[in-house]
């Protein structure tokens, strides 16, 4: 099987190279045969990488320790589910997984565009194949997943215990899906630049791809945060570690891109900006991979030095230079005739929202690479930690939330005072009222006050929008409120799905404020039978129970939580010792309610004195971070949902143009 995998990867590399030639040659010669041949090569390439994936999975599932990768990342006692996920638990496997996703997405793009976008699609597919060549070359020559090991060990080194977790099983695939699918819009943007077909065909061809990518970047970041929260045992979910930043930056830029393409579709503005953004988003995914594999930046949970850094950096530099050169080369053609007329316009709100998003991304970038910069410039490594990121991004996030409220309601081109009053009176009142209530509740931090007020302001704008749409439907079509709501969303899924995403963002934002500003942290060593107070709760340590199986040993503390005289919960925080890598891990006990999470960590224990050390966090509102994330996901699914009208329009357009072979997606209705 391993030899088959090796062979398949070699063939895949050749097929990728051939598909570039066939696509470019076919497009230049206008030869449908060559283009068809290129498509087939792409599909065959995908099949080959699939075979390699199957071969590695087979090795992991059968504990084939002749393979270095299997011996290093699995063991016979590892639960089957983690044998499967250990495919992306290590360097070689995760790059193979990346390549697999890339070839799948390239295949889908080839299928989607077999009749559509004949001018740019061949070049876009060629660009995707260039990216595939890079990854396949790495797998063939630099970091081989099927290297043998000698002597063959009897037992594997096992998967890192921190990765033996549900969230870690789904976090990397989500993030990788988000990363890799950004290749499609990037490739179509590059193809538009290469061919000079700079209308918004490339944006329309990849709108779903961009949203798809954003969806998975969002989930990937949230799953990663959730994993950190449940597994790492420090009571938080985000530490501005370089690894986290690497995943966050593409998300920010992609968010900016999804907003600014609306301006191009509607107003034919920001063409250069959109092309630059998608190039930046893609470059940041490669940069993130470089960052996490190179060891250039020290991170507490980094992937450490692996020698891949120079390859990724070279690839990144080539991509950035080539793409920038294309942008400069085409900049004359890209000048748009339209211009922004007023600060009080939707165009301006979107432009500023883009600036702030990219500004946050830049601040994160700057803070992440600061140690390297300072060492190069001043000869001494200086780091900036979480306080830096919070200080910079805190105010910027407030600005962003404000623009999020303004953007969707303000008029295009130019707003009149009457328009502003009509749209923003209710949201403003809601925001101020919320601020007043929170103030009266005793909150004095200016950031929390303004954050909650702004969140309520945004909620107000969305309520106004929904109320208007529902009201109009009830009035015109005589529908019931529930039916009107359902129809409103179904018929304008992009717009109202977008609002639901916005609700998710402000709900998550409220959760972040609550957990960032009002967290209580108590550390205490107690004997069995003793108790201590955390906020309104009393934590009563009952006893310690120890157990063991072939894979792990565990010590679980039983803790009774009471509030006043009422028993609230029996919690079981513990410590787990993984036998194979000889590594301890924390098993956090969390009791989550909408008001606050009680988070209990057994930080240590001493059997001789019957003492256990606990760290307990009482974190208000953190529940809403996850709830908001779920809402964002639901909203995104609504946005991506195929719209019946849109599909009919595509079918009509395809029927109309099938004969002269210039099928394109129709111009979308709505936003």
């Amino acid at each position, binding site marked *: 099987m391993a030899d088959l995998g090796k062979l398949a990867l070699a063939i895949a590399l050749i097929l990728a190279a051939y598909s570039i030639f066939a696509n470019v040659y076919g497009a230049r010669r206008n030869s449908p045969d060559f283009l068809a041949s290129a498509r087939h090569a792409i599909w065959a390439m995908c099949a080959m990488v699939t075979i390699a994936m199957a071969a590695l999975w087979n090795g992991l599932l059968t504990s084939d320790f002749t393979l270095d990768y299997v011996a290093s*990342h699995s063991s016979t006692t590892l639960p089957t589910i983690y044998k499967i996920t250990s495919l992306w*638990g*290590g*360097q070689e496997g995760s790059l193979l997984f990346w390549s697999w996703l890339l070839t799948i997405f390239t295949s889908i793009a080839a299928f989607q565009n077999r009749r559509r976008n004949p001018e740019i699609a061949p070049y876009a597919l060629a660009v995707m194949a260039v990216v595939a060549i890079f990854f396949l070359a790495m797998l063939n020559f630099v970091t081989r997943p099927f290297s043998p*090991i000698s002597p063959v060990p009897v037992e594997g*080194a096992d998967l*890192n215990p*921190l*990765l033996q977790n549900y969230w870690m099983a789904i976090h990397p695939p989500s993030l990788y899906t988000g990363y890799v699918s950004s290749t499609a819009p990037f490739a179509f943007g590059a193809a538009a630049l290469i061919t000079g077909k700079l209308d918004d065909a490339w944006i329309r061809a990849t709108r779903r791809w961009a949203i798809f990518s954003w969806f998975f970047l969002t989930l990937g970041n949230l799953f990663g945060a959730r994993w950190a929260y449940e597994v790492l045992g420090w009571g938080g979910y985000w530490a501005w570690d370089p690894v986290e930043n690497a995943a966050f930056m593409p998300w920010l830029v992609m968010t900016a891109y999804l907003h600014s393409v609306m301006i191009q579709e509607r107003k034919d*503005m*920001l063409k250069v*900006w959109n092309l630059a953004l998608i190039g930046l988003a893609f470059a940041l995914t490669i940069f993130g991979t470089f960052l996490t594999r190179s060891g250039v930046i*020290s991170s*507490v*949970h*980094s*992937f*450490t*030095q*692996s020698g891949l850094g120079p390859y990724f950096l070279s690839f990144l530099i080539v991509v950035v230079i080539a793409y920038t050169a294309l942008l400069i080369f085409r900049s004359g053609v890209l*000048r*748009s*005739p339209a*211009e*922004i007329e007023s*600060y009080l316009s939707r165009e*301006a709100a979107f*432009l*500023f929202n883009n*600036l*702030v998003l990219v500004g946050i991304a*830049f*601040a994160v970038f*700057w803070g992440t690479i*600061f*140690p390297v910069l*300072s060492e190069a410039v001043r000869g*001494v*490594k*200086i*780091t*900036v*930690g979480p*306080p*830096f990121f919070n*200080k*910079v991004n805190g*105010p*910027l996030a407030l600005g962003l939330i404000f623009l999020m409220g303004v953007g969707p309601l303000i008029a295009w081109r130019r707003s009149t005072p009457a328009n502003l009053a009509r749209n923003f009176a209710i949201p403003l009142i809601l925001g101020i009222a919320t601020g007043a209530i929170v103030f009266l509740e005793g909150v004095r931090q200016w950031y929390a006050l303004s954050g909650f007020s702004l969140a309520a302001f945004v909620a107000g704008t969305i309520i106004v929008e929904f109320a208007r749409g529902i009201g109009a439907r009830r009035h015109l079509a005589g529908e019931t409120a529930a039916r009107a709501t359902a129809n409103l969303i179904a018929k304008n899924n992009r717009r109202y799905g977008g609002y639901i995403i916005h609700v998710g963002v402000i709900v998550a934002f409220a959760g972040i404020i609550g957990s960032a500003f009002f967290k209580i942290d108590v*550390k205490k*060593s107690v004997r069995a039978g003793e108790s201590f107070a955390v906020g309104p709760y009393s934590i009563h340590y009952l006893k310690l129970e120890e157990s063991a199986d072939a894979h792990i040993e565990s010590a679980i503390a039983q803790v009774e939580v009471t509030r006043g005289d009422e028993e609230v919960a029996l919690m079981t925080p513990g410590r787990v010792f993984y036998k194979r890598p000889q*590594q*301890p*891990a924390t098993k956090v006990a969390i009791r989550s309610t909408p008001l606050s999470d009680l988070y209990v*960590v057994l*930080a*240590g224990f*001493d059997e001789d004195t019957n*003492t256990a*050390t606990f760290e307990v966090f009482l974190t208000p509102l953190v529940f809403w971070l996850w709830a908001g994330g779920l809402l964002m996901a639901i909203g995104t699914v609504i946005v991506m949902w195929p719209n019946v009208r849109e599909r009919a329009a595509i079918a009509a357009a395809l029927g109309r143009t099938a004969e002269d072979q210039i099928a394109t997606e129709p111009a979308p209705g709505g936003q």
Partner: protein
Amino acid sequence: MRVRPRFLIGTALIVAVIAYLIVSAVSSTSEYFLTVSEVNSRQAELAGQPLRIAGRVKSGPIGWDPATLTLSFEIVPIPDPTNAKDGAASADASIAKVSASEPLSYHVICAGQPKPDMFAVGRDVIVEGRLGKDGVITATQVMTSCPSKYRRKQAQ
């Protein structure tokens, strides 16, 4: 995109605000990130400053008082990976080597924090805190570096 001059003003304003936030936050939150050897060579000027120090936990007794959550240990320089080809598998051996040739070490006291999961002799750690005039590092936090997900022990 053509933007009227007054939009350039708005744009410039936003860019300036972002730049100001970054610059001011850098100056108020930055810490030196040093290795144990670097700390040694500039000890005088570093005293009292917020530092992050990368080092390795020296073999020998580790003090841990669960009642006060006080951890005390010695850190030594992390050996250069190009010299120590044995890597993580025999961290103790390389420590012994380093300790023999270079008796450089600092005493670290960290109070009020639980002992990190992976804390052990021979583990690479990052210590956040201040260096006292007496050469003792008073840490606010001790973080253990993950012994790399992406690199296995070099057995051969």
